[in-house]
Protein backbone atom coordinates (compact mmCIF):
# COMPACT_ATOMS: atom_id res chain seq x y z
CA UNK A 1 0.00 0.00 0.00
CA UNK A 2 2.02 2.96 -1.24
CA UNK A 3 2.17 6.34 0.44
CA UNK A 4 1.21 9.12 -2.00
CA UNK A 5 4.30 10.93 -3.31
CA UNK A 6 5.84 13.37 -0.81
CA UNK A 7 8.57 15.22 -2.70
CA UNK A 8 10.83 17.76 -1.00
CA UNK A 9 8.84 20.58 -2.62
CA UNK A 10 5.78 19.48 -0.62
CA UNK A 11 7.43 19.87 2.79
CA UNK A 12 7.50 23.19 4.67
CA UNK A 13 9.18 23.40 8.06
CA UNK A 14 8.54 25.81 10.93
CA UNK A 15 5.94 27.76 9.01
CA UNK A 16 4.22 30.72 10.57
CA UNK A 17 0.44 30.88 10.21
CA UNK A 18 -1.93 33.36 11.82
CA UNK A 19 -4.85 30.95 12.03
CA UNK A 20 -6.12 27.59 10.76
CA UNK A 21 -7.11 29.05 7.39
CA UNK A 22 -3.58 30.29 6.84
CA UNK A 23 -2.16 26.91 7.91
CA UNK A 24 -4.41 24.99 5.51
CA UNK A 25 -3.64 27.50 2.76
CA UNK A 26 0.09 26.82 3.30
CA UNK A 27 -0.39 23.08 2.89
CA UNK A 28 -2.44 23.82 -0.25
CA UNK A 29 0.46 25.84 -1.60
CA UNK A 30 2.80 22.94 -0.85
CA UNK A 31 0.55 20.57 -2.84
CA UNK A 32 0.53 23.09 -5.68
CA UNK A 33 4.33 23.43 -5.51
CA UNK A 34 4.76 19.68 -5.87
CA UNK A 35 2.35 19.55 -8.79
CA UNK A 36 -0.24 17.38 -7.00
CA UNK A 37 -2.93 20.06 -7.13
CA UNK A 38 -3.82 23.39 -8.66
CA UNK A 39 -3.64 26.51 -6.47
CA UNK A 40 -7.43 26.34 -6.07
CA UNK A 41 -7.22 23.09 -4.06
CA UNK A 42 -6.16 24.95 -0.90
CA UNK A 43 -9.41 26.90 -1.02
CA UNK A 44 -11.35 23.65 -1.40
CA UNK A 45 -9.69 22.24 1.72
CA UNK A 46 -10.55 25.42 3.65
CA UNK A 47 -14.14 25.17 2.43
CA UNK A 48 -14.47 21.58 3.71
CA UNK A 49 -13.57 22.76 7.21
CA UNK A 50 -15.85 25.81 6.99
CA UNK A 51 -18.68 23.51 5.96
CA UNK A 52 -18.13 20.61 8.35
CA UNK A 53 -16.00 21.95 11.21
CA UNK A 54 -12.51 21.01 12.38
CA UNK A 55 -13.00 17.25 11.98
CA UNK A 56 -9.75 17.07 10.03
CA UNK A 57 -7.87 17.31 13.33
CA UNK A 58 -7.87 13.54 13.64
CA UNK A 59 -5.25 13.10 16.36
CA UNK A 60 -3.61 15.29 19.00
CA UNK A 61 -1.59 17.96 17.20
CA UNK A 62 -2.33 16.62 13.72
CA UNK A 63 -4.64 17.89 10.99
CA UNK A 64 -5.25 15.88 7.81
CA UNK A 65 -6.52 18.52 5.40
CA UNK A 66 -8.14 17.25 2.23
CA UNK A 67 -10.97 17.95 -0.18
CA UNK A 68 -12.79 15.72 -2.60
CA UNK A 69 -11.21 14.40 -5.76
CA UNK A 70 -11.98 16.94 -8.48
CA UNK A 71 -10.56 19.15 -11.20
CA UNK A 72 -8.20 20.79 -8.67
CA UNK A 73 -6.32 17.51 -8.16
CA UNK A 74 -3.60 16.76 -10.71
CA UNK A 75 -2.07 13.67 -9.14
CA UNK A 76 -2.11 11.75 -5.87
CA UNK A 77 0.07 13.61 -3.43
CA UNK A 78 0.87 14.38 0.16
CA UNK A 79 2.26 17.54 1.74
CA UNK A 80 3.55 18.26 5.25
CA UNK A 81 3.65 21.65 6.96
CA UNK A 82 5.08 21.94 10.47
CA UNK A 83 4.06 25.02 12.42
CA UNK A 84 6.47 27.21 14.37
CA UNK A 85 3.60 28.11 16.70
CA UNK A 86 0.76 25.62 17.25
CA UNK A 87 -2.63 26.71 15.92
CA UNK A 88 -6.13 26.23 17.34
CA UNK A 89 -8.54 24.68 14.84
CA UNK A 90 -11.41 24.67 17.34
CA UNK A 91 -11.35 20.88 17.83
CA UNK A 92 -12.76 19.62 21.15
CA UNK A 93 -9.96 17.11 21.85
CA UNK A 94 -6.97 17.43 19.57
CA UNK A 95 -5.97 21.11 19.54
CA UNK A 96 -3.54 22.78 19.14
CA UNK A 97 -2.28 21.60 15.78
CA UNK A 98 1.48 21.37 15.23
CA UNK A 99 1.56 19.40 11.97
CA UNK A 100 -0.74 19.82 8.96
CA UNK A 101 -0.86 17.08 6.35
CA UNK A 102 -2.37 17.87 2.98
CA UNK A 103 -3.80 14.99 0.94
CA UNK A 104 -4.79 15.14 -2.73
CA UNK A 105 -6.37 12.07 -4.29
CA UNK A 106 -7.41 11.70 -7.91
CA UNK A 107 -10.77 10.15 -8.64
CA UNK A 108 -9.15 7.01 -9.90
CA UNK A 109 -6.66 6.92 -7.07
CA UNK A 110 -6.48 4.05 -4.64
CA UNK A 111 -7.47 6.26 -1.75
CA UNK A 112 -7.81 3.45 0.75
CA UNK A 113 -4.33 2.20 -0.04
CA UNK A 114 -3.08 5.75 0.32
CA UNK A 115 -4.76 6.41 3.66
CA UNK A 116 -3.75 2.98 4.95
CA UNK A 117 -0.15 3.98 4.30
CA UNK A 118 -0.72 7.24 6.20
CA UNK A 119 -2.31 5.27 9.06
CA UNK A 120 0.76 3.01 9.18
CA UNK A 121 2.95 6.05 9.84
CA UNK A 122 0.86 7.41 12.71
CA UNK A 123 -0.78 4.40 14.39
CA UNK A 124 0.20 4.16 18.03
CA UNK A 125 3.40 6.06 17.43
CA UNK A 126 5.04 9.37 18.26
CA UNK A 127 5.25 10.38 14.60
CA UNK A 128 3.42 13.69 15.24
CA UNK A 129 5.99 14.64 17.87
CA UNK A 130 8.85 13.59 15.58
CA UNK A 131 7.43 15.57 12.66
CA UNK A 132 6.74 18.66 14.78
CA UNK A 133 10.38 18.75 15.85
CA UNK A 134 11.95 17.61 12.56
CA UNK A 135 14.93 19.76 11.63
CA UNK A 136 15.18 18.97 7.92
CA UNK A 137 12.99 18.11 4.97
CA UNK A 138 14.86 14.81 4.72
CA UNK A 139 13.90 14.00 8.32
CA UNK A 140 10.23 14.59 7.50
CA UNK A 141 10.39 12.31 4.46
CA UNK A 142 12.16 9.63 6.50
CA UNK A 143 9.59 9.78 9.34
CA UNK A 144 6.79 9.53 6.78
CA UNK A 145 8.52 6.65 5.01
CA UNK A 146 8.36 8.57 1.73
CA UNK A 147 10.16 6.98 -1.19
CA UNK A 148 8.76 9.25 -3.90
Amino acid at each position, binding site marked *: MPLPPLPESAVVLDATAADWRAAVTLVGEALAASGAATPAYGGEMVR*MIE*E*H*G*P*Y*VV*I*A*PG*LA*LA*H*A*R*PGPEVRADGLAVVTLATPIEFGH*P*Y*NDPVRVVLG*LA*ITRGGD*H*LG*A*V*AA*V*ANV*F*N*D*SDAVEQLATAATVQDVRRIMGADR
Partner: protein
Amino acid sequence: MKIVTICGAGIGSSGILKVNAERVLKRLDLEADVVAADIGSVKTAAADAQVILTSPEFVDAIGQTYADVIVIENYFDTDELTRKLEAALG
Protein backbone atom coordinates in the same frame (compact mmCIF):
# COMPACT_ATOMS: atom_id res chain seq x y z
CA MET B 1 -22.62 -6.65 10.54
CA LYS B 2 -22.01 -3.31 8.88
CA ILE B 3 -19.97 -0.38 10.18
CA VAL B 4 -19.92 2.98 8.41
CA THR B 5 -17.20 5.59 8.90
CA ILE B 6 -18.26 9.15 8.14
CA CYS B 7 -16.31 12.28 7.22
CA GLY B 8 -16.82 15.35 5.04
CA ALA B 9 -15.41 14.01 1.80
CA GLY B 10 -15.69 10.25 2.20
CA ILE B 11 -11.93 9.93 1.72
CA GLY B 12 -9.10 10.87 4.04
CA SER B 13 -10.32 10.79 7.60
CA SER B 14 -13.17 8.31 7.05
CA GLY B 15 -10.69 6.16 5.12
CA ILE B 16 -8.29 6.18 8.05
CA LEU B 17 -11.11 5.20 10.41
CA LYS B 18 -12.11 2.37 8.05
CA VAL B 19 -8.58 1.02 7.80
CA ASN B 20 -8.02 1.18 11.55
CA ALA B 21 -11.46 -0.22 12.41
CA GLU B 22 -10.72 -3.21 10.16
CA ARG B 23 -7.40 -3.74 11.91
CA VAL B 24 -9.08 -3.66 15.32
CA LEU B 25 -11.92 -5.98 14.23
CA LYS B 26 -9.38 -8.48 12.97
CA ARG B 27 -7.58 -8.33 16.29
CA LEU B 28 -10.89 -8.88 18.10
CA ASP B 29 -11.70 -11.71 15.70
CA LEU B 30 -14.96 -10.00 14.65
CA GLU B 31 -16.40 -9.97 11.14
CA ALA B 32 -17.89 -6.78 9.71
CA ASP B 33 -18.17 -4.83 6.50
CA VAL B 34 -16.63 -1.42 7.06
CA VAL B 35 -17.64 1.26 4.56
CA ALA B 36 -16.27 4.82 4.33
CA ALA B 37 -18.81 7.44 3.26
CA ASP B 38 -19.27 11.19 3.21
CA ILE B 39 -21.79 12.92 5.43
CA GLY B 40 -24.00 13.71 2.43
CA SER B 41 -24.65 10.02 1.82
CA VAL B 42 -24.93 8.91 5.45
CA LYS B 43 -28.66 8.17 5.21
CA THR B 44 -28.20 5.59 2.44
CA ALA B 45 -24.76 4.33 3.51
CA ALA B 46 -25.83 3.79 7.12
CA ALA B 47 -29.41 2.62 6.52
CA ASP B 48 -28.49 -0.98 7.37
CA ALA B 49 -25.47 -0.27 9.60
CA GLN B 50 -25.15 -1.29 13.22
CA VAL B 51 -22.38 1.16 14.04
CA ILE B 52 -21.32 4.59 12.75
CA LEU B 53 -17.79 5.77 13.56
CA THR B 54 -17.13 9.50 13.21
CA SER B 55 -15.81 12.75 14.68
CA PRO B 56 -17.77 14.91 17.13
CA GLU B 57 -18.49 17.45 14.36
CA PHE B 58 -20.78 15.06 12.47
CA VAL B 59 -22.97 13.73 15.28
CA ASP B 60 -25.70 16.36 14.78
CA ALA B 61 -25.62 16.05 10.99
CA ILE B 62 -25.98 12.26 11.18
CA GLY B 63 -29.26 12.82 12.98
CA GLN B 64 -31.66 10.03 13.87
CA THR B 65 -30.38 6.55 13.13
CA TYR B 66 -30.80 3.01 14.42
CA ALA B 67 -27.03 2.61 14.44
CA ASP B 68 -24.82 3.23 17.47
CA VAL B 69 -22.97 6.48 16.77
CA ILE B 70 -19.46 6.24 18.21
CA VAL B 71 -17.29 9.35 18.41
CA ILE B 72 -13.59 8.72 17.93
CA GLU B 73 -11.20 11.31 19.39
CA ASN B 74 -7.81 10.09 18.16
CA TYR B 75 -8.07 8.23 14.86
CA PHE B 76 -4.66 6.65 15.31
CA ASP B 77 -5.21 5.32 18.81
CA THR B 78 -6.20 1.74 18.13
CA ASP B 79 -6.65 1.17 21.89
CA GLU B 80 -9.42 3.77 21.90
CA LEU B 81 -11.00 2.14 18.83
CA THR B 82 -10.73 -1.30 20.39
CA ARG B 83 -12.32 -0.14 23.65
CA LYS B 84 -15.21 1.64 21.95
CA LEU B 85 -15.90 -1.08 19.37
CA GLU B 86 -15.82 -3.77 22.06
CA ALA B 87 -18.29 -1.80 24.15
CA ALA B 88 -20.63 -1.31 21.18
CA LEU B 89 -20.44 -4.84 19.81
CA GLY B 90 -19.85 -6.84 22.99
